[in-house]
């Protein structure tokens, strides 16, 4: 009977971890390995007793690692799955004890197995849903994720130490109760501490973002002032030009007028058209966060000597998506464009916000190298045009956008242009 229970526990360990990590469905191969390993561990239970859990955890880790290849993620899923399993184990034992089942009877094991499956699976689905909602809302950064994983692993270690200790002393129902009680208290304290820590981190992050935003707005204002000076200068010239024209006409010197038009006026108007006003439409974005990210990146691009243009014909009063996610997405997109243009050393970029009745279309378009990898290559996870582990690839952008249900994206490479379009539907 205990053989069956050990096997069941291993299966649950693997599957809860898999559920929490939103992994793929377990295919036949790892399942077979799990069952085989389960049988092996189950028989060693006779000799090792509760210490079988050590090889069990290692085994589960290896099985998961084979399909996932991300040690941190596996560790996180496995530790929280295990915590859940241990909690349900203690809970089920206590419930059955309260219901006067005799420990060790077939009925006890049957009820134990059913309840254990129900509790741990339900719990892991709960954690998964919770995790998804957290990810959608505030996006844990990598540091916090790591911390959360370590917290989970540490908790498992502490709990197993308690179990081994109680096994050493001799397991009684009171001891299990006490264990469970301490453990729950420990968990609560740990998570409370974590909650406050993450909150303070978030606050610090927000302050930093605000500062960056402030800085971007500052530069934008400077840019505006410069343009205003330019316009004032033109207004001054304009007066002069008019009086010159007047003079030519009064003297009926049409040859002189012609010459004046060709040499002076035309050039002045060309100068006016060509430069400096490529970002004037930024004032049409009324959403501060969005305006500041686009302004700061485009101004930086211009400072780097890149021909950068912004266009919007209508006021953008609001962006119907989470602004934190949108700012990050735009940051990645614009950085990618700037990096690519620095690589090709020439070419231009254009950013457009286009509104229609159903959606806001954000377009980022830039010249790219002629041997640009194909779109499906660019979208592969971990792919970057700048070698390993550098830059944030399109894959992470896709992941970020994927979280937002009303946003769809389009990626096109054609005629030496790379185009990325985000369509944000008004809902």
């Amino acid at each position, binding site marked *: 009977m205990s053989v069956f229970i050990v096997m069941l526990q291993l299966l649950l360990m693997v599957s809860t971890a898999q559920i929490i990590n939103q992994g793929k469905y377990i295919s036949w191969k790892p399942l077979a390995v799990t069952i085989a390993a389960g049988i092996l561990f189950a028989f060693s239970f006779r000799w090792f007793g509760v210490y079988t859990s050590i090889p069990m955890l290692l085994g589960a880790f290896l099985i998961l690692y084979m399909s996932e290849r991300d040690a941190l993620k596996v560790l996180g899923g496995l530790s929280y799955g295990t915590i859940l399993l241990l909690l349900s184990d203690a809970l089920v034992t206590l419930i059955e004890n309260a219901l006067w089942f005799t420990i060790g009877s077939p009925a006890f094991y049957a009820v134990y197995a059913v309840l254990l499956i129900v509790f741990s699976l339900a719990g892991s689905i709960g954690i998964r849903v919770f995790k998804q909602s957290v990810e959608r809302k505030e996006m844990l950064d990598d540091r916090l994720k790591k911390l959360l994983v370590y917290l989970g692993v540490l908790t498992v270690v502490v709990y197993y130490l308690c179990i081994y200790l109680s096994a050493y002393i001799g397991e009684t129902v009171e001891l299990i109760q006490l264990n469970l009680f301490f453990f729950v208290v420990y968990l609560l304290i740990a998570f409370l501490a974590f909650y406050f820590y993450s909150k303070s981190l978030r606050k610090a992050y927000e302050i930093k973002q605000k500062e960056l935003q402030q800085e971007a707005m500052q530069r934008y204002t400077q840019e505006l002032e410069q343009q205003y000076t330019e316009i004032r200068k033109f207004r001054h010239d304009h007066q002069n030009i008019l009086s010159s024209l007047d003079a030519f006409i009064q003297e009926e010197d049409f040859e002189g007028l012609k010459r004046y038009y060709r040499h002076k006026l035309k050039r002045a*108007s*060309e100068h006016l*058209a*060509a430069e400096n*006003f490529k970002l004037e439409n930024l004032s049409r974005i009324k959403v501060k966060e969005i305006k500041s990210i686009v302004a700061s990146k485009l101004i930086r691009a211009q400072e780097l000597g890149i021909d950068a*243009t912004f*266009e919007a*014909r209508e006021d953008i009063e609001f962006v119907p998506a989470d602004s934190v996610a949108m700012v990050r997405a735009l940051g990645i997109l614009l950085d990618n464009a700037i990096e690519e243009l620095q690589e090709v050393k020439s070419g231009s970029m*254009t950013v*457009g916000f*286009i509104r*229609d*009745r*159903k*959606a806001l*279309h954000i*377009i980022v*378009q830039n010249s790219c190298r002629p041997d640009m990898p*194909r*779109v*499906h290559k660019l*979208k592969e996870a971990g792919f970057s045009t700048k070698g390993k582990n550098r830059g944030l690839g399109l894959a992470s952008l896709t992941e970020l956008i*994927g*979280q937002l*249900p009303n946003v*769809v*994206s*389009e*990626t*096109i*490479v*054609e005629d030496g242009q790379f185009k990325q*379009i985000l*369509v944000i*539907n008004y809902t």
Partner: protein
Amino acid sequence: MLSVFICEDDPKQRERLRKIVTDYIMIEALDMELALDTGDPVSVLDYLERHPKTTGLYFLDVDLQHEMSGIALASEIRERDDSGKIVFVTTHGELSYLTFIYKVEAMDYIIKDRPDEIERKVRECIAVADKRHLSDSGTQSRRFKVKVGEKTRSIDHKDIMFFESSSVPHKIILHMDNSQLEFYGSIKELEEIGGSFYRCHKSYVVNKDNIKSVDRAKREIEMINEEICLVSVRALKGLD
């Protein structure tokens, strides 16, 4: 026959455009006529109401000194004349390249500030529009229609590699030669396109015409753009 429209509020510039257009049509003996030249956007729409089967080439000024801008006019024209060719005539300052291309799928634009180039550009646009009009009416290929915002995109079946359901519910990724487009839908309804489209996996519908090779051992299909699409054991049979 292609009908040419000119909508420009400045009479001088309108006259100039009119002359370039009529001269070019006459010299090249093209199957086209100047249907209307006006400064009033509403009269263009009136014309289209009266002649609903028109396919046009439209030269539109962006700033019309009218409550309806050239771009708004273009959107209205699009709704009435799906395959019309739109060319914007604009000053450098009014140039909104992305809006022209994405919002109204304009064919081209002409910059007024460079008077010496206007004539050359107008002629070029007429030639291109004529060529496209002929090829449009020649081939009636099957097309896949998809909504993006308020716009309906129409994609030739032969450009489609495969459809893939995304990890996010209700989002489908349409894979083409060198582009990917996401839209809302379900694999199940795509299965019903029929023709060369085949449901080869629980999350893929492949265009059989664009398959390069099938790796039966790995259960993968390589498309002509070297992209890989998955195939289930059961669906392998249907690929023979």
